[in-house]
């Protein structure tokens, strides 16, 4: 009897103490859907490390957001859609925002998060038409969408060909998933507009074997190859392109196909490969100095700290910064530091990352400025082209940040989101 009482007492104490700790420390919950294991871990780890280091820095340097500490529980998805949905269900209570880090998971979460009143932020991925805030109240994909990306890649090709690409052949090598299929519609529309011939070449998960794909490319000799790849698919594709001697300067990947991991295995063969990007690589920014001072020098780095300054790590910093800024904006709008998920959404919709604000946050010249609004959840739509230098093992930005074909992209977004609104019986807002 005594033992039973003792056990009950101990359990009650543990519950009470842990609830107190949670209330005292975990004021703002930013659950992280990560993939630190499995086939896509080499991409997932640096990105997740960027998030964690930024949150830790904000907690250490500023004491959290408006005095409220950030709690960032991780849930391992393995880049699997079903597991991602389970992670969402497990962590959605009191969550400010979810960053699914997978277009497949994002598609599944859109109706769920909308019903639950939880913000989903898919930074430069996910469903492109979610950029239409009139229909997708809870979903954000700023600063740039896949359809912007596709049209920016075509714009870059147009510039190289003095505005005329009629009769040229452009191949799209894509991950055979919701993510990889995203740009097809835009590229087809642009093919009609500019008169180029589009070749579609899907690659099944994980993309370890692509011989047939590259034999097709070798025979068809497209002028340009675009790639929407992720994980091992990127490395094999870049190596295969080098192997068939495809001119690397005519091979352009989306921003998820342009990290150091993707090009290093191909060695010198990857020299000249291009990718789009919406953030800079390197460590020469104030945010890196702060992270080093408040996190790494105290032995608190996420992982072994070896990804510091890489493309995907820096993207994680950028994504985390936007999420933290949204919370700060929400606190300002509602006049309280203790914001609710609904208040957080208001903050995300009013994020205004001007050049001045980016500088204040330690991100000067790190990424182009952007602003969300009720109508626009897709940001500025700006991206630049970076090129790999295999000799110095560095990415170099070779263009300014540029816009895509907004006439085409906006029309497609309006069409797709209207269709979704009709299917889901969603009344347009912001009118």
């Amino acid at each position, binding site marked *: 009897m005594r033992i039973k009482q003792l056990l009950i007492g101990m359990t009650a104490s543990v519950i009470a103490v842990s609830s107190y700790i949670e209330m005292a420390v975990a004021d703002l919950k930013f659950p992280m859907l990560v993939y630190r294991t499995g*086939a896509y*871990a080499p991409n997932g780890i640096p990105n997740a490390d960027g998030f964690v280091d930024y949150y830790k820095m904000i907690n250490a340097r500023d004491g959290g957001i408006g005095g409220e500490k950030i709690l960032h529980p991780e849930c391992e998805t393995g880049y699997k859609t079903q597991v991602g949905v389970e992670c969402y269900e497990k962590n959605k209570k009191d969550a400010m925002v979810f960053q699914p880090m997978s277009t497949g998971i994002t598609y599944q979460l859109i109706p769920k998060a909308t019903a639950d009143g939880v913000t989903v932020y898919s930074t430069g991925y996910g469903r492109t038409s979610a950029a239409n805030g009139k229909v997708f109240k809870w979903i954000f994909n700023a600063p740039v969408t896949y359809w912007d990306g596709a049209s920016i890649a075509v714009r870059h090709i147009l510039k190289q060909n003095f505005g005329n690409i009629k009769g040229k052949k452009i191949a799209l090598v894509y991950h055979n998933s919701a993510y990889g299929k995203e740009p097809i519609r835009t590229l087809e529309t642009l093919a009609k507009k500019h008169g180029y011939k589009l070749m579609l070449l899907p690659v099944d998960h994980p993309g370890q*074997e692509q*011989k*047939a794909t590259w034999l097709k490319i070798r025979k068809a000799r497209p002028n340009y190859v675009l790639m929407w790849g992720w994980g091992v698919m990127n*490395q094999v594709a870049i190596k295969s392109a080098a*192997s068939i001697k495809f001119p690397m300067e005519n091979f352009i990947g989306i921003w998820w196909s342009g990290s150091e991991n993707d090009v290093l295995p191909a*060695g010198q063969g990857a020299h000249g490969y291009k990718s789009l990007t919406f953030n800079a690589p390197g460590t020469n920014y104030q945010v890196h100095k702060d992270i080093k001072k408040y996190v790494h020098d105290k032995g608190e780095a996420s992982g072994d700290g070896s990804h510091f300054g890489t493309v995907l790590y820096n993207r994680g910093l950028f994504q985390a910064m936007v999420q933290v800024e949204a919370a700060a904006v929400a606190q300002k709008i509602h006049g309280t530091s203790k914001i609710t998920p609904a208040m957080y959404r208001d903050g995300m919709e009013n994020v205004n990352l001007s050049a001045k604000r980016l500088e204040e946050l330690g991100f000067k010249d790190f990424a182009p400025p952007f602003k969300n609004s009720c109508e626009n959840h897709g940001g500025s739509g700006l991206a630049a082209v970076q090129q790999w230098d295999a000799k110095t093992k560095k990415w170099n930005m070779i263009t300014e940040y540029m816009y895509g074909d907004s006439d085409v992209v906006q029309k497609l977004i309006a069409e797709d989101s209207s269709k979704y609104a009709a299917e889901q019986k969603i009344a347009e807002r912001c009118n």
Partner: protein
Amino acid sequence: MSVELLNFIETVLNGLMSGVMYSLVALGFVLIFKASGVFNFAQGVFALFAALTLVGYQTGQVPFAHLINELFGTNYHNWYASMPNFFAILLTMVTMIALAWIIERLVLKHLVNQDPIILFMATIGLAFALEGVGDLMWGSDVKVLDVGIPSGGSIWLEEATIGLAAEGSDYYGMYVDVLNIWATVIAVILVVSLALFSQYTKTGRALRAVADDHQAALSVGISLRSIWILVWAISGFIAMVAGIMWGTESGVQFSLSLIALKALPVLILGGFTSIPGAIIGGLMIGVGEKLAEIYIGGYFETGAIENWFAYVMALVFLLFRPQGLFGDKIIERV
């Protein structure tokens, strides 16, 4: 010759080369299944683990560095700058033998006389455990593997075949990756060595005896446990070769363990107990899937049919010859 015919030959040639890569993985499965009746689900992870270990030794990485640093607040990452390939490969082989010994002591020894399904389940557990250990030991980053095997299109073949097409035709010569040619040479050496070993050495004959009948082999004094360690060690060595070939192509990363899925249709087609079956099956699957992808893939809206087409081929074969091309015929006596 017409360009179409030359392209067809090129596709077949590349299919054969891919098939060799699949066979390298399938060989490990066959060896273990033949000797112990265990379908080793962990064979793909073996290849991954071997490749991770090889790169770790090459680059002087401290095993379990992350764990050690986390526990003791240290900052160890590398012992030394680099190790010559020969020694790194040798050390990896020793590690794979040690791994075989550990598996025998910790898993197989305790499961003697259990149903095949229990042993199969144990290897599934082993696959996940080994993947986790590999992650803890060497980390999850993409690693560049270079043991000096050349890669890239063969310029010689391209130049030798460019003149075969009719004059004025749009033909650039035939393409074959040099890495795949090396893989073929290595696979041939491997199969010949295995055949000589099993035919002409005492241990090889003991291995065949165990494969034919465990009880009979035991009754003539053959140590089942030593043979199992040996067979798992050989299979670990083959996994290392497969890991080197696949890792050189894509970089060493955790998706490498999925190459086991490429070996399954090969095994169904070639039979689970035949080394020539693993080779012929690999070649048939390689050619079949490449021809399918290039010549009929365009008729499917989704494209990318080669992965599932290999399984369709295997399934069709299964209907007519369940034991595979060279597998032992299943005879049930009443």
